[in-house]
């Protein structure tokens, strides 16, 4: 016993010494490696980013933002403000009021919602919002909330279609998502070009899963870890993350995913709870904060680009966070068994509400209310440095959120660090699934195809952690918005199908043919 203890102690010392030498030798080489990865990455993806974010001719307004806004508005109007009409029924569905007890043991509406939420609630809510308010000012929050409310209609449409047109295989598994509803739905309506559009979507989905669903997450997780424990090369975090992701998606070590998926909801509640406490601690500034949000929404309060700048940032970050119109949620929801595809749509429209209207707003409020954004006392306008608002301590991204929480609750950055890592991880696992579904759509179902995608996914974890925030965030956005371009075209074409489903369901609900089980 004695010798065993002393031996293990000496092994520990040896390992520590080895690690110390390794780390002391690394920095010079490591930062060079980080820079190389960064330069190569920025130069190879630049053209794609430029195309997606190209402004409308003669303005500084990116066409992609207009595309998303118009899409969400059209769907909101077409379905007669569906997001407000059915929300009570959505809650009843989630509570299980309409679930047939005979189907117990199948995935419930609550589980479908929770799984989809753990894929969307992530760094977009923590880091993305910080980016939005530091570039677009507090006013971006207003546009973010509006985008969240409108996005509920897009989410409703895509998730209904996802379930309706999924593929079911003899072994009971299913594959669904925009690539399937675009192909089958277009064929059903006799619209040409479905196959080509579906392939285009699948390509963008693979890029999106490697970008926003992977590199952005790894990058921000690294920033947060480095912020708490001191700076060290990003590729080290990348390799550690890649190994864990590898263990889960390739090694089938589901227990890790299961554990994080169980902790993530509690982290979400803890995050919102703490944010609420901080807001209440500053109750005297709540009125002022909302004043800043509303005033900023229409004037910009001196932010670069003014009102338009705030609007662009708000809509961009909201779309990136709740993924409404992007098509990813349609993949997640399509695996759920239900007799009525439309019920999945009703449930899914709660996601943008929880994700953006509740959680994102909390983050923004905490940043504004703790006065992280520096105001020039003379003019009352925000101080602009390098195109964004100067912050106390010069933080950005997840660092800004961390500083905002830390200024009120000193130990919270540690909790946030854990939350960020878990959120990042669960989002990566979800997106690895979305990417995989798109990949197998392109290359066919099979073990070999699956493995090749999973290995590629792990490689991008390392690249994402090592690259700088700028190029990574640009590429992540571009890839995710490219998915939205294709998906929303598909949604426009298939709107009448969803309308038919909706009217049929609502009339059966009114007539009592669809009834409560409890």
């Amino acid at each position, binding site marked *: 016993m004695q010798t065993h203890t002393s031996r293990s102690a000496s092994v520990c010392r040896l390992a520590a010494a080895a690690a110390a030498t390794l780390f002391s030798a690394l920095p010079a080489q490591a930062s060079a490696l980080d820079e190389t990865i960064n330069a190569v990455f920025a130069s190879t993806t630049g053209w794609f980013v430029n195309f997606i974010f190209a402004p409308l001719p003669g303005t500084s307004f990116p066409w992609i933002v207009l595309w998303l806004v118009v899409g969400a508005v059209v769907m909101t109007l077409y379905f007669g403000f569906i997001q407000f009409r059915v929300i009570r029924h959505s809650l009843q569905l989630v509570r299980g009021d309409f679930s047939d007890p005979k189907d117990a043991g*199948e995935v419930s509406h609550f589980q479908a919602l929770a799984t989809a939420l753990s894929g969307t609630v992530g760094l977009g809510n923590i880091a993305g919002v910080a980016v939005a308010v530091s570039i677009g000012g507090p006013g971006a929050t207003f546009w973010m909330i509006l985008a969240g409310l409108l996005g509920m209609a897009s989410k409703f449409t895509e998730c209904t279609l996802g379930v309706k047109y999924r593929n079911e295989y003899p072994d009971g598994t299913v594959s669904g998502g925009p690539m399937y509803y675009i192909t089958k739905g277009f064929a059903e309506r006799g619209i040409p070009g479905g196959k080509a559009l579906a392939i285009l979507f699948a390509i963008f989905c693979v890029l999106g899963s490697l970008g926003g669903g992977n590199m952005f997450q790894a990058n921000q997780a690294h920033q947060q870890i480095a912020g708490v424990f001191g700076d060290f090369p990003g590729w080290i975090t990348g390799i550690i993350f890649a190994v864990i992701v590898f263990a889960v998606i390739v090694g089938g070590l589901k227990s890790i995913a299961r554990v994080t998926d169980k902790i993530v909801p509690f982290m979400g509640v803890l995050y919102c709870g703490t944010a609420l406490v901080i807001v209440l601690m500053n109750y005297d500034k709540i009125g002022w904060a909302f004043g800043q949000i509303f005033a900023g929404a229409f004037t910009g309060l001196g932010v670069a680009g003014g009102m338009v700048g705030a609007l662009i940032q708000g809509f961009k970050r909201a779309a990136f966070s709740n993924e409404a119109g992007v098509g990813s949620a349609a993949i997640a929801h399509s695996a759920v068994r239900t007799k009525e595809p439309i019920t999945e749509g009703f449930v899914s429209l709660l996601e943008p509400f929880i994700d953006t209207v509740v959680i994102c707003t909390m983050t923004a409020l905490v940043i504004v209310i703790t006065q992280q954004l520096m105001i020039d006392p003379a003019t009352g306008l925000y101080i602009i440095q390098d195109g964004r608002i100067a912050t106390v301590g010069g933080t950005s991204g997840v660092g800004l959120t961390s500083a905002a929480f830390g200024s009120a609750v000193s130990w919270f950055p540690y909790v946030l660090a854990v939350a960020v890592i878990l959120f990042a991880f669960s989002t990566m696992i979800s997106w690895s699934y979305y990417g995989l579904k798109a990949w197998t759509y392109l290359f066919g179902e099979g073990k070999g195809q699956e493995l090749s995608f999973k290995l590629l996914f792990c490689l991008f974890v390392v690249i994402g952690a090592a690259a700088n925030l700028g190029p990574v965030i640009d590429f992540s956005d571009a890839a995710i918005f490219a998915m939205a371009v294709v998906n929303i075209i598909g949604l426009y074409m298939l709107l009448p199908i969803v309308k038919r489903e909706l009217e049929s369901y609502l009339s059966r609900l009114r007539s009592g043919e669809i009834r409560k089980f409890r």
Partner: protein
Amino acid sequence: MSNTIIVAYDGSAAGRRAVDFAAALVQGAECSLVLLHVLEWSPYSFLTPDEVEERHARRKVELARAESAIVAPIKADLEAAGLKVNAQIRYGNVTDTICEVAQETGARQIVIGRTGQAGVMSRLFGSVAGALAQVAPVPCTIVP
């Protein structure tokens, strides 16, 4: 009053004693026996995307396994002894489901073994038998 007796069986030795006890009650009397096996399931647990996708297939496997390994052998034994058995497999919270079935069938009595899957968890959170003793809608016999 109906003459149905429910016996909850989880495959354990105590469960088997409960079945035998219930069989003795039913034997010779004008009673029918419901043999109930509940698979613990909460619609509010959290699943990964993979688990969501596999759920339907896995449910089929779970039901088949419960049928072949747990319910069918006991049912065969009871039928061999000349009893009429209505076997049911359900998903849900074990205690709640037993109570639901008791109400649906208008059962006269519930019979259950005292120690199902005993262990630290049931010591901490209470056992099914303990919970049933408190909430059962009809008389409940707990077989040691």
